[in-house]
Structure formats: C-alpha cells, structure tokens
C-alpha cells in the first residue's frame, strides 16, 4: 500500500510536514502523493470522525434496504446512482443477499427520513420495496471504540 495512505489510515492527525518527516519524504513529495491519490480516485476527501453521541439529538441516522429491478442496460447502476445523488444519502452500496441496495442516510429528524423514503425513494420507478432501520446507539465508529473505559491507574512511568 502507498506509504502516505497507510500512515493517514492509522488515524493520527499529522501535518504534511510531519508525515514527510516520518516517511523521509519532502513536503512537496507528500503533497504530490495526495494529488496522485486524488487523481486516481483513491482518496475522495477529508472528514473528521465524530462521536455519534455528540451528533445525537441533532441528526438521525438510518439504514435503508432497497429492492430494485435491474434495467436491461446498466443493471442496477443507473438507479443506484440516482438514489446516491440525494444529499442526505451518505453511502449507497449494491449488496448480495435479500435486497439490492443498502443506503445510509442522515437527516435532521425522523420525519425527514420518512418523507425522503415515502416521497422520493419509494416512488422512483424501479424501486420495488424499502425497509428502513433507525440507528439507536453506536458502539464503534469507523474503527474507534466508543464508551471504552481507559485504565486510570496505569503507571505513567515504569522500567
């Protein structure tokens, strides 16, 4: 794996200069790696990972299972791309198994999710059915464990 990518995936917040120092690259070389990763479509963007408990009350998270009928040309792609266009849709995947698309969405309220599903999603031609699940609580968010107690009496010095 690209060393710059590998390092940023570790999840520590390092500046370009610091990454350069760690990997023995110049700042320009690290910037060039970023550009390359972006051009290649590997690196899509940057976002902080927030604790869902912090967001709770401001947003609701829903997961929607969608059954759709594939089209003669393009299969599931066109409809999946249409569904993905909505701003509230965070992620959209084609799945194997009992349904076709798995849609992750965020909205201000339960009502917003409901109106999206009823008015926009289920009325799209080709959408056969939907099943909407609301997230109640997060235990792990993108690799970060939540609610794990840290050991407080671990010695801060030892031999």
């Amino acid at each position, binding site marked *: 794996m690209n060393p710059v990518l590998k390092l940023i995936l570790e999840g520590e917040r*390092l500046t370009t200069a*610091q990454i350069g*120092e*760690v990997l023995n690259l110049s700042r320009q070389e690290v910037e060039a790696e970023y550009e390359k990763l972006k051009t290649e479509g590997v690196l899509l963007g940057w976002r902080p990972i927030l604790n869902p408990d912090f967001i709770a009350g401001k947003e609701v998270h829903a997961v929607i299972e969608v059954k759709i009928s594939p089209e003669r040309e393009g299969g599931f792609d066109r409809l999946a791309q249409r569904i993905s266009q909505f701003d509230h849709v965070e992620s959209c995947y084609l799945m194997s198994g009992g349904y076709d698309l798995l849609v992750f969405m965020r909205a201000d309220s339960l009502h917003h999710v409901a109106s999206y599903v009823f008015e926009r999603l289920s009325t799209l031609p080709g959408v056969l059915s939907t099943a909407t699940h609301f997230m109640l609580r997060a235990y792990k968010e993108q690799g970060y464990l939540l609610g794990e107690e840290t050991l407080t009496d671990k010695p801060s010095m*030892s031999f």
Partner: protein
Amino acid sequence: MSRFVAKHVAGLPRSGIRDFFAIVAQMKDAISLGIGEPDFVTPWGIREATIFALEQGKTSYTDNRGLNALREEIADYVAELFDVSYDPEDEILVTVGVSEALDTALRAIINPGDKVMYHEPCYVSYSPSITLAHGIAVPIITKAEDAFAMTAEALAEAWEPGCKALLLNFPTNPTGGTVARETLQKIAAFAQEKDMIVISDEIYSELTYEGEHVSIASLPGMRERTLFLHGFSKAFAMTGFRIGYACGPKDLIDAMMRIHQYGILCAPIMSQEAALEALRHGQDDMLFMKERYQQRRDCIVERFNKMGLKCHKPKGAFYAFPSIADTGMGEVDFAKALLEQEKVAVVPGTAFGSGGKGFIRASFATSYDNILKATERMERFLETRCQGVSA
C-alpha cells in the same frame, strides 16, 4: 522494626527514581516517554480467549510446569524462531513473567558468594535479583560507541575468578542494544572456556528491527549450559498477564521447577490460556505492533540527533537512549528540569546502573502525536537551558 529485615534485603538500594515517578503520576498533562511497556492494549483475540477460558470455568491450578498444550506450543515456537529444541515434557517451565523465571533461575544455580556477570546499563532488577539469590553481581559496562552491544573483550576484562553465570539481555532494555552472531559466538566460547552457565533473557527478541536475532542457546555447545528465558509481555503487549517461561536442560529446569512448585505452584491458568492464544493466533497483531514501533523509532532517533542529543539507532526493543552529556547537565537534573519546564517525562540513564550515566531513556512505544509533541518540547527545553548544544 528494621532490625527484623534480612541484611541482604536491607542492603538493597532504594531507587531514588521512585520519587520522580510519583511527581510524573500526579502531573495530569505530562507526556510520558518513561513507560516500560507497549502503549497498545492486549490484542482483542487474546483478551477474548481469556474471557472464554473463564466462562469455561478454567479457574483451577495447572500442572506445576504449566499447561501441556502451552508447553508444546512454546516448544514449537522456540524451535522455529530461535532454532533450538526443548522437550515440553521436562525442559520447559511456564512462569509468572520472565521476572519469576529470572529469580528462580538465579536461585536454582547460585550458592552464596557465587558471582554472576551481567551487562550494564540494564533492566533494573538484574543486580538486585542476583543479590537476593545471595550471589555477587559483577557488571560489564556496555558503551554507546558499540551501540551498547556487549563485546567479548569487555566480558573478558570484567571476568574474575568465581564467576559462575553470565546474564544476558539482548535486545536490551534500556539501550536497544543487540549482539551480532560473531560476537555472540565469541561470548559463547568464553562462557565455555570459563565453564559459566548463561541465563539469556530474550523478552524483546521479536522486536528486532535490523539484522537477525540469534539466541545464544542455539550456538554449538551452548544448549546444555543456557537457560533461555522468554515471555509474552512485550511482543504481545501482555504485561499485566504476567506470563513467561524458561527453557533449558532437564536438570536445570527440574531444579527451577522445585523452587517454582513450592513458591508459586503454577502460573495463573487464565494467563496461560491467553499465552496459548497468543502463540496460536497472535502473530499478525504482533507484527502490526512491531511495524509501528519501528516507524516511531526512526522518527524519534532522527529528532534527537537533529536537536543535538546524540542517539544511536536501537536495533531492538522500544527505547531510544540518547546521550545528554553535551548539555552539561546530569541525567537526573536533566530529567527533573525537563519535567518541570516542559512536562515531558523520561527516565534518567543511571536508573539502569552506573553505565547509564549521561543518558536518558525515552520509550517510543507511543503515538506519533506524543513523540512529535514531546520532542518539540525537548528541543525548546534545550534551546532555553543549554545554549552550548547544537546539532
């Protein structure tokens, strides 16, 4: 009531560093590079296996020597990694960490007044453990110019009549020193010539970043005069499990077993189960942690050298051991002032014996964020405290 304390215990030096540790413990926002253990929590697979063992009701004593399955797994692991074979039946003893293995090994072989050679700077317990076993500790000083590898010449020079054993620890805490095969061969030849038994604590062996790790037990003629000690604390991030083992010729392991059975009975079964899991499925996690230590080592060593603290690149373990001699400060004053002024904790080199004079130990088993912040603070500290130092 101090008159009741045994003389050899009363004579043990009380570590002055403990007071320093207490100050660090109370300082909330200090960055500590003074921790002698991995910053990783034990891999989940190993923790989960321990929980499962408890659920299964595995809470009893085990065979004094340790679980059969564990001894068999240890035999395979040691044969593969260290190129030396031991019979799980009577040549392997599972202990409460390498600490117990070392203590038991020393007690098994030392008659009062026997001399035991060890290299310094070294882990803090070696000299006291020798004393507690009624032996006499004979230090061999390793030097920065040799990257703290022990040389055969230094060994020969330190040797004196009455030396019965040689205690080795490579890679070394606190210096990260390792010994190349050729040097180890000379050390082995010397041990044979002087008829010494070797106790080799190889707890950091998996964390060897450059060159091969060679166990002295694997060299010709050494298996019969070596007690090989190893454990799970460092490579598998299992310090709190307190689990290790000793391998050696039958007679010696039997002698250790007798002390162990009366003193300890057996290592805790849940820790033994955890160790079994580590050997069976813990390799990937171990290699993942090792890779991270190596990257962090390169970063911290470069930063120390840049700021004017001469530092060799340790080939093993997870400690950098830079010289602070050019600052004109003593290592204890340096550590105290650094903590006071910049809230960065390091361990003064003399905590590891007089050979550590003029050095500090900084652990790099921590996040980049901590390493970068701590070294930035140290650079600022050097700028304000010691104008004389320059890169």
